[in-house]
C-alpha cells in the first residue's frame, strides 16, 4: 500500500476544510520510535554570500551618502549593513535540520523560534538549485516540495553539495523503507510484534533516460514563436485598425512618428516597416535561443529505482527529483512550428505542481525533455509511465458535429457584427462575413486533431488546432470525471468530458457524442474507483 494515502485513508478528516497536508503525519501509532537519519546546519560559506548580499543592499545609501557628503546617509547604510549581516548570521547559527524516519524538521529563529515539521510521506520532491556564485562555492539550495499545491514548502539555503546529495539519498531510502514497513506492519501487528527495522535500501543503479543535445536546445529556442507570433499579430492588428480608420482617432501620441514616417515614399516605408519587424523578430528568436540554452544547458534525465532525476542549467544549475508514482499526467506538446519539424516537448505534471496547458513554470520544473524528435519522445514515455508500453490504444475520433458547434457561433457572430459595422464603416464591413468560414475552418482543424483512446490503465487524448498535444493520464490517478453540456451541445447531442487529476490543470475532451462521453466517463470512473494505486 503506497504511503501517502495510508494516512489519508486510515483517518478521513470529517470536520472543516483543512489542507490535505495538514492531515496528521501518522494516525497509525508507529511501532518504532523515529530515529534520526541525518541532521546538520547550513554551510558556513553561505555567510560569504550573505555578506555580499548585505553589502549590495547597503551600497546605495553609502555611495549616495559619500557623494552628497551626508554622513547620516552613510551611517544609515552602515546600520543597514550590520542589521542584514546580523540577521543572516543569527539565521545561520540557529537553523538546524533533522531528518528522522518520520519527518523532516527545520528549526530556525533567534527571537521568534519556528519549527517546521514535514512528514516524510508528504514530501513530494527534493530539488536543488544553485546560482553561479553558489556553484563556485560548492553550495546548493535544497527545495522541499509537498503535494499541498503550494509548491516549495521549505528551502534550505544553502547546504554543501555533498550534504545536499546525502540528504536526498537518505530521504529516498527512508521513504522506500517506510513503504516496505507499512506493508510488513500489517502482518507484524497481526502477530503482535513490531516489524524489524530494515537496513537502508541499497541505492539502485542510475539509468540515463534522456539527454538533450545543444542542437536540440537551439532548435527549441528557434521554434519558440511566442514572442514573434505576438509581434506579428500586434502588427496585423495595427494594420487592420489603420485600414478601418481607428488609428487616426487613437493617434495623438503616435502622430509625430507618423508624420516623420510619411515623408518617405510608400515603398521605402513598407520596406522600413518590414525590416523593423524582421529585426524585432530576430531579436526575439535570439533571446529565446540564448535563454533556452542557458536554462536547459546539459539537460539530463536519469532514473534510479523509481525516481526520476533531472539536472540542467548553465548559470543556475537545477537538480530535481520526481518519483514516478507521483506523476499525474504526461504531455507531448508540439507547437505548429515544432510539428512541422517533427519536434516535441515532453512534460510531466506531478501532484502539487500547477500550470495551465502550454505554459512553462519558471525554471522548467515540469519539463522532462526540452526538445526532441517525436519518435524519441514517444519512446521515452514508458520510462515515465511504466505499463504504457503494454497498452494497445484504439484511437477514436470526436464527433464531426464539433465543426457545426464551432461554425454556428461564428456564423451568428458574423451576421450580427456585419450590419452593425456596415452602418459605421460602409461596405468594408463585408469582410467580417469571413468570420463564418474561418470559424468553420477552426472547427475542422480542432476536429481533425482531436482523438482519444482508453486503454487498460491509461487514458490518452490528442488535441490541438495547428499544433498538437498528446496527453497520457493514468486512470488510477483520476480524482473526478465530469461530463458537461452547454445549451448548444444539448441541441447537437454533444458533451465535454473533463478529467481531474491532482496535479496540473484538468484534461478536457471537447465535443464527444453524449453516448461516447458517458461511456468513457463511466469506464474511467470505475477504473479509478477500483485502481490499486492509491498514492497521488
Amino acid at each position, binding site marked *: *500500500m503506497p504511503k501517502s*494515502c*495510508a494516512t*489519508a*485513508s*486510515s483517518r*478521513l*478528516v*470529517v*470536520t*472543516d*476544510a*483543512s489542507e*490535505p497536508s495538514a*492531515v496528521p503525519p501518522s494516525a497509525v501509532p508507529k511501532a518504532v520510535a523515529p530515529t534520526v537519519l541525518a541532521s546538520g546546519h547550513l554551510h558556513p560559506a553561505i555567510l560569504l554570500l550573505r555578506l555580499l548580499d548585505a553589502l549590495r543592499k547597503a551600497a546605495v545609501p553609502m555611495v549616495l551618502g559619500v557623494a552628497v557628503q551626508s554622513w547620516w546617509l552613510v551611517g544609515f547604510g552602515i546600520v543597514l549593513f550590520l542589521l542584514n549581516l546580523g540577521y543572516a548570521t543569527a539565521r545561520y547559527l540557529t537553523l538546524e535540520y533533522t531528518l528522522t524516519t518520520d519527518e523532516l524538521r527545520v528549526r530556525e529563529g533567534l527571537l521568534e523560534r519556528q519549527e517546521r515539521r514535514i512528514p516524510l510521506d508528504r514530501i513530494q520532491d527534493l530539488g536543488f538549485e544553485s546560482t553561479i556564485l553558489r556553484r563556485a562555492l560548492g553550495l546548493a539550495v535544497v527545495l522541499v516540495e509537498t*503535494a499541498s*499545491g503550494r509548491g516549495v514548502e521549505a528551502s534550505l539555503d544553502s547546504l554543501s553539495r555533498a550534504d545536499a546529495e546525502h540528504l536526498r539519498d537518505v530521504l529516498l531510502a527512508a521513504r522506500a523503507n517506510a513503504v516496505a514497513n507499512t506493508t510488513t506492519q500489517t502482518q507484524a501487528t497481526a502477530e503482535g510484534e513490531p516489524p524489524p527495522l530494515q537496513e537502508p535500501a541499497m541505492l539502485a543503479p542510475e539509468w540515463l533516460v534522456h539527454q538533450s543535445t545543444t542542437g536540440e536546445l537551439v532548435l527549441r529556442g528557434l521554434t519558440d514563436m511566442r514572442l514573434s507570433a505576438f509581434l506579428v499579430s500586434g502588427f496585423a492588428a495595427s494594420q487592420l485598425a489603420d485600414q478601418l480608420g481607428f488609428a487616426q482617432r487613437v493617434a495623438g501620441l503616435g502622430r509625430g512618428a507618423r508624420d516623420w514616417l510619411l515623408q518617405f515614399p510608400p515603398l521605402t516605408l513598407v520596406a522600413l516597416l518590414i525590416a523593423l519587424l524582421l529585426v524585432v523578430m530576430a531579436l526575439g528568436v535570439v533571446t529565446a535561443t540564448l535563454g533556452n540554452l542557458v536554462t536547459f544547458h546539459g539537460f539530463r534525465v536519469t532514473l534510479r529505482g523509481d525516481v526520476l532525476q533531472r539536472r540542467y542549467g548553465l548559470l543556475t544549475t537545477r537538480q530535481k527529483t520526481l518519483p514516478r508514482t507521483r506523476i499525474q499526467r504526461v504531455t507531448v506538446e508540439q507547437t505548429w512550428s515544432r510539428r512541422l519539424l517533427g519536434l516535441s516537448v515532453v512534460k510531466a505534471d506531478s*501532484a502539487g505542481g*500547477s500550470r495551465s496547458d502550454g505554459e512553462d513554470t519558471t525554471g522548467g520544473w515540469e519539463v522532462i525533455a526540452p526538445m526532441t524528435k517525436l519518435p524519441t519522445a514517444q519512446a521515452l514515455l514508458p520510462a515515465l509511465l511504466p505499463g504504457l508500453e503494454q497498452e494497445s490504444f484504439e484511437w477514436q475520433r470526436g464527433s464531426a458535429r464539433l465543426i457545426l458547434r464551432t461554425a454556428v457561433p461564428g456564423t451568428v457572430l458574423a451576421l450580427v457584427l456585419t450590419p452593425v459595422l456596415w452602418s459605421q464603416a460602409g461596405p468594408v464591413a463585408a469582410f467580417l462575413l469571413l468570420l463564418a468560414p474561418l470559424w468553420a475552418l477552426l472547427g475542422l482543424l480542432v476536429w481533425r486533431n482531436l482523438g482519444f483512446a482508453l486503454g487498460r490503465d491509461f487514458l490518452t487524448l490528442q488535441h490541438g488546432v495547428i499544433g498538437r498535444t498528446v496527453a497520457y493520464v493514468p486512470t488510477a490517478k*483520476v*480524482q*473526478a*470525471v*465530469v*461530463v*458537461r*453540456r*452547454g*445549451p448548444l451541445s*444539448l441541441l447537437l447531442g454533444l458533451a465535454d468530458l*473533463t478529467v*481531474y*487529476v*491532482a*496535479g*496540473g*490543470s*484538468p484534461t478536457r475532451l471537447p465535443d464527444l457524442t453524449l453516448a461516447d462521453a*458517458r*461511456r468513457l*466517463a*463511466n*469506464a*474511467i*470512473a*470505475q477504473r*479509478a*474507483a*477500483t*485502481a*490499486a494505486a*492509491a498514492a*497521488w
Partner: protein
Amino acid sequence: MSGEASLRPEQRLQRRVIAYWLVGGALTTTVLTGLAWFVGRPLLVEHWDKWSSTFDLVLAGACFGLLAITLIEPPLAYARWRYAFLGDLLLMRYGILFVEERAVPVRRMQHVDLVRGPIERLFGLATLVVFTAGNEGSSFRVPGLGVTDAQELRDRIVEARGDGRL
C-alpha cells in the same frame, strides 16, 4: 461493482430545498435590486446628467428579470438534480443550461464536510461537501439533503473510505 448501465444517479434532493433556494435567492435578489434602485439610481441621477427614463426602464427591467430568474431557477434546478452513492463512486448530475455529470471515486476523497447555514437549518437541510486532492475543481457539493440523510451518507462515505485497505 455494478455494471456500466447503472452508473446514472437516481436519488433526488429533498423537495423543500426549492423553498430553501427560493428564500436564499429572494434575500440576495432583494438586497441587490434594493441597492441598485434605492442607492445606485439616485446617485446616478444626481451625478450623471445623461440619465434618462430609458435607463430607468432598463434598470427596472434588469431588476425584474433578476427576480424572475430567482423564482424560476429553484424548481428547474431541483428537477435536474440527481445524486447517488454506489459504494466506491459518488455521482451527481445537475445544471439548468449547462448540465454536468460528475463522478468522484471515494478513494480519491481527502475529507468530507457537512455544512449547514442558518437558513438551511431552518429547513432542516444540510450540504455535503467532498474534497479531493488537486488544484482546480477539487471540491464537490451535494446540497439539499435531509440532516439524517446527509449524516448517513457521510458516514457511508467515511466507512467506504476509512478501512484504507485497497
